[in-house]
């Protein structure tokens, strides 16, 4: 029992972390339709910036500054690269971000070396928040959850309190029409992309010391964040949020479940021995596949509900 309570808690916090990672992507992907493969790289950039700025001026200022820096870089990238290819459609955009991710990771390695850097949790936030059944719940996790929620709020406000969302959606299909109605489409795109990058940066500042800040960190989160956006449903912020929590919890609970299909099979009277065909598959424990469940989930969702959980439209 207590194990499940703890797992749920872990699941929630992990889910919120996932949302923190993917919120920026949700913004860009759902609004601009750009599959931003460099998103994870922005996340990494945020972490490394934070590492350096923290040494100079401390964690709290870094919390503000490094996302801004990343945001600027993102905006610049949109302004000088992405914008050129926008008219050629999504594939070139995607490849552009692809190329960027290569470059960023190399540059990071040039500046900060190829190994992890010693980027620590600020003393103020380290230590347990509370203890549950003899396991401590780290304060920093609490902080992380808080920030994730703040992100959710801010994006939500952006989407509902301003027309930016509408302008972009319209501009995706009829840029000229939107412009001739007096909206500065290019600027809006730049802002959104920059904003998305900044969110990724913020995630980096916080994820960087919660986990390990190293050049490999981008690749690690790489595709999972897409899963979230897709499962949640393109164009749906709430969906992404829901998906994050769902995936977080599923994955966490699955870790705790050691039963495999063997059990089910024997229940059905099938009796499977190590030399039955595909024994490996039969004996695969749920806990073992937990980390790849999200992909399974995504495929299933896309097949049976292509809109995604709360999505409004397909593709």
């Amino acid at each position, binding site marked *: 029992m207590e194990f499940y309570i703890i797992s749920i808690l872990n699941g929630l916090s992990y889910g919120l972390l996932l949302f923190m990672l993917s919120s920026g992507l949700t913004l860009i992907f759902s609004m601009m339709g750009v599959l931003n493969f460099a998103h994870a790289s922005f996340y990494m950039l945020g972490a490394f910036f934070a590492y350096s700025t923290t040494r100079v001026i401390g964690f709290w200022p870094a919390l503000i500054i490094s996302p801004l820096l990343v945001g600027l870089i993102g905006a610049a990238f949109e302004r000088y690269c992405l914008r050129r290819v926008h008219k050629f459609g999504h594939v070139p955009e995607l490849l552009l971000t692809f190329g960027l991710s290569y470059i960023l990771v190399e540059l990071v390695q040039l500046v900060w070396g190829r190994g992890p850097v010693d980027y620590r949790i600020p003393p103020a936030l380290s230590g347990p928040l509370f203890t549950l059944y003899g396991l401590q719940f780290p304060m920093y996790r609490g902080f992380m959850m808080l920030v994730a929620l703040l992100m959710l709020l801010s994006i939500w406000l952006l989407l509902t309190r301003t027309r930016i969302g*509408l302008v972009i959606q*319209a501009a995706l299909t009829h840029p*000229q*029409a939107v*412009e*001739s*109605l*007096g909206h500065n489409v290019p600027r809006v795109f730049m802002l959104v992309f920059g904003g998305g990058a900044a969110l990724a940066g913020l995630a980096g500042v916080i994820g960087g010391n919660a986990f390990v800040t190293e050049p490999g960190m981008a690749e690690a989160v790489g595709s999972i964040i897409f899963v979230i956006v897709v499962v949640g449903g393109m164009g749906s912020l709430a969906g992404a949020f829901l998906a994050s929590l769902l995936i977080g919890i599923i994955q966490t609970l699955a870790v705790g479940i050691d039963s495999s299909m063997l059990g089910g099979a024997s229940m059905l009277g099938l009796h499977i021995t190590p030399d039955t065909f595909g024994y490996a598959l039969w004996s695969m424990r749920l806990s073992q596949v937990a980390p790849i469940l999200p992909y399974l989930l995504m495929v299933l969702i896309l097949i049976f509900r292509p809109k995604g959980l709360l999505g409004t439209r397909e593709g």
Partner: protein
Amino acid sequence: MLKIDNLHAFYGKSHVLHGVSFEVHPGEIVALLGRNGSGRSTTAKAIMGLVHCEGSLRWKDQETLGKKAYEIAHSGIGYVPESRDIFPRLTVQQNLLLGQKGKGKGSRWSFDDMYRMFPRLKERQNTEAGVLSGGEQQMLTLCRTLMGDPDLIIIDEPTEGLAPKIVELVGEYLKTLKERGISVLLIEQKLTIAMAISDRALVMGHGSIVFQGTPATLRANNDIRKEWLEV
């Protein structure tokens, strides 16, 4: 108010407008007529800064050539494209909302005006614009542009696909616009309402103006009509 002088426009390398010159004065309706492919839509796009062009475009005594579309729009020109260009994924309401420029800024027109003009739109206000009927879409684009509160409105074939009654209605509304001091550049195909409501008519052929005058003189001038319009 709008003064076009020796305007040349290009699509990529193809030269479409060859020195177009004309004026639009405050509060007048000018009809721009011509055959398919004569370059009327291109003229409209050129004014909105949507195609690459050379020459001189003066609006409210300022050179707008080379300005961005949104800047021109903000300076008070509204444009209703011929390919309706409604935003299919947004609702009717949202489409109109995007018509407004700096929000809050008081406009001559309110949502209610629009809905009064075309009750059909009110009924559909929360459906996705993409599923509207052809005609409804046409109405929507017109209203959307009006929401931006322009001083000059360029309308490219507004009556296309409209039922005769609605066509007449549109004619009426263009007149009311004029009464409110808004000038209209009306690009038309079928002479019907154009001749009825316009103060002046321009005829375009092969990318330049081949006739200027009142509808009356145009009606009189048969060979022009034969050569540049139709039998």
